[in-house]
């Protein structure tokens, strides 16, 4: 097993389009790294460059101590699981699994042993004699994972492996893959994983660390908790979290202990936020997660007043869509605190919890409330 390093990696397509802009990323040995981002953010391109399916226009990719830029995919010590499984349709499951080993002309008994072991691990023993078209989506995905696992690669690459499965199966496969990663670690052969997804639930639940990408740039690399609580910029703040973080243009003035002006409404900066604030004042983007935007009594201090537009009752919680000074905000409140008589058109007061308020510089988008 080995770590993986991307140093200033670029990708420019022949038509001149620059997809990846000099990214640096270090993935430790045995780490589960998730690349996440909206479509078109070049996360798959990055993965395919690691795999060797795309040429690297600049910079270097290192697996372990080897620069692999010019190595063929088969010689990089990687294994890959594709979004649509990419099983060989004319080969039975067994042949699909051991194709790589047969190409390497490994001894027959070794191939047989590896096939048995992998099929046992993934519970696909009874599928070995079937053709890929006779498998369900979940089974096909397990075979695809098996085909990667059997090679005992240095690095596993997953390219949106669960996006073709239905929601229920996706959840169980998610657990299965996380569990497999953990088990390999316990068995003393930790696997380095690079996992591409556009689904933030997968990213948050599976990754040791998450790399959020946008337009070929890395926005932040951090563990799930840091990513959620201390987003480096407004993009990460808005991308991670459900429903997404409320972001609104506002003005910060540092006089009189500090104030934030949102349209015609002004709130004071509470000590919890003030201690973290590194902004010099001026144009900011004010960010508060719906879960931290609390409903308070009308007239309470440091609250924003708005009009309820839509009430979404989900059972365990309620999403309130509120308009404040022309901005659309969402507040999520637990069902038991929800006043059943509330209707669209009501005026409510909401208090952004200071501990969870984020202040982003409006020009750079960078978080200016992470402390010194």
């Amino acid at each position, binding site marked *: 097993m080995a770590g993986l390093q991307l140093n200033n990696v670029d990708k420019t397509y022949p038509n001149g389009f620059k997809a990846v802009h000099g990214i640096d990323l270090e993935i430790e040995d045995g780490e589960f790294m998730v690349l996440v981002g909206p479509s078109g953010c070049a996360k798959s391109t990055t993965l395919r460059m690691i795999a060797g*399916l795309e040429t690297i226009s600049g910079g270097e990719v290192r697996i372990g101590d080897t620069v692999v830029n010019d190595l063929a995919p088969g010689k990089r010590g990687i294994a*890959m699981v594709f979004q649509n499984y990419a*099983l060989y*349709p004319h080969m039975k499951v067994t042949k699909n699994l051991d*194709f790589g080993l047969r190409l390497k002309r490994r001894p027959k008994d070794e191939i047989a042993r590896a096939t048995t072991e992998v099929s046992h691990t993934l519970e696909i023993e009874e599928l070995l004699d079937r053709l890929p078209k006779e498998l369900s989506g979940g089974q096909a995905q397990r075979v695809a994972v098996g*085909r990667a696992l059997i090679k005992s690669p240095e690095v596993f690459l997953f390219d949106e492996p669960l996006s073709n499965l239905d929601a229920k199966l996706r959840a169980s496969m998610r657990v299965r893959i996380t569990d497999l990663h953990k088990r390999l670690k316990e068995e003393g052969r930790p696997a380095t994983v690079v996992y591409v997804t556009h689904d933030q639930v997968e990213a948050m639940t599976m990754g040791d660390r998450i790399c959020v990408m946008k337009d070929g740039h890395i926005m932040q690399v951090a563990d799930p908790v840091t990513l959620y609580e201390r987003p480096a910029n407004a993009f990460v703040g808005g991308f991670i979290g459900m429903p997404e973080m409320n972001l609104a243009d506002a003005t910060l003035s540092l006089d009189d202990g500090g104030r934030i002006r949102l349209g015609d409404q002004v709130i004071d900066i509470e000590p919890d936020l003030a201690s973290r604030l590194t902004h010099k004042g001026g144009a900011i983007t004010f960010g508060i997660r719906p879960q931290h935007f609390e409903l308070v009594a009308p007239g309470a201090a440091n609250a924003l007043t708005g009009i309820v537009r839509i009430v979404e009752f989900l059972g365990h919680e309620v999403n309130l869509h509120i308009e404040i000074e022309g901005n659309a905000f969402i507040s999520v409140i637990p069902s038991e605190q929800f006043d059943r008589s509330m209707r669209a058109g009501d005026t409510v007061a909401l208090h952004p919890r200071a501990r969870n308020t984020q202040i982003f510089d409006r020009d750079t988008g960078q978080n200016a409330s992470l402390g010194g």
Partner: protein
Amino acid sequence: MSVTTPEVTTATSGLTAHQLREQRRAKISATIRYVILAAVGLLMLYPLIWLIGASFKTNSEIFANPGFIPSEPTLDGYIKGWQTSTPYTFARFFWNTFLIIFPKVLFTAISATMVAYGFARFEFPGKKILFATLIAILLLPNVVTRIPQYLLFRDIGWLDSFLPLWVPSAFAGDAFFVFMLIQFLRAVPRDMEEAARVDGANSFQTLIFIVVPLLKPAIISVCLFQFMWTMNDFLGPLIYISSVEKYPVSLALKLSIDTTEAFEWNRILAMSVLAITPALAVFFIAQKHFIEGISSGGVKG
């Protein structure tokens, strides 16, 4: 129960009357449709049916009796026709045809697949110009190249041999087949090939183990087309082959018309029937793959 039953019956019989009318109408329209189809089909097939029937007639009956059922069926045409007026039997001519077809089909399949794989999956300098050339060849009438080709093969010294008939195919000379395979391959997702590369296969191994099995229906179509076209090719052998011992079936049929003063039509017809048999047999055996090959552009994953 006894009360409701009559009501139900009336309702059903009412419905049935309506249904009967519908059914009758459907039956009549189907009958008309099938009669027309059968008549047109028979019209199309009549020459073939007549050919087979006439091959069992005596020479004099062929012109006397317009129907296709022979009044006194005889195998005379087959026996005498097989003997031919040359020192060779038709067995020799069938063997000659085989000697042309076998290498031609085999090499077409190999070369067209390789060239199509190259065009469909790789980027290389001059690809656009080469592809344009390929399409140009596709559009060029065959006749245009006959004379330069003849001169070329004459200078190499391949006249009166089978080489000019199949060597061009070994170098993907049949642009149509290359084009057909390229189109087919374009519709096949690349993921399987990428998976094979990650599994450690080089380009050649990917071609053999992944691409060829995926292309199987298209390759079978190519083989079938090439088989039938070569079997029926008359002009090629006519130009390049001069000695009777090397004549394929298509030329041998003409031979019996040339050399005999009064044409023995029953012999010619009998041998014609034999000449179309292999093509028909091969077509029906491979029909399933053939139709799959021309109708489907892609492969189910």
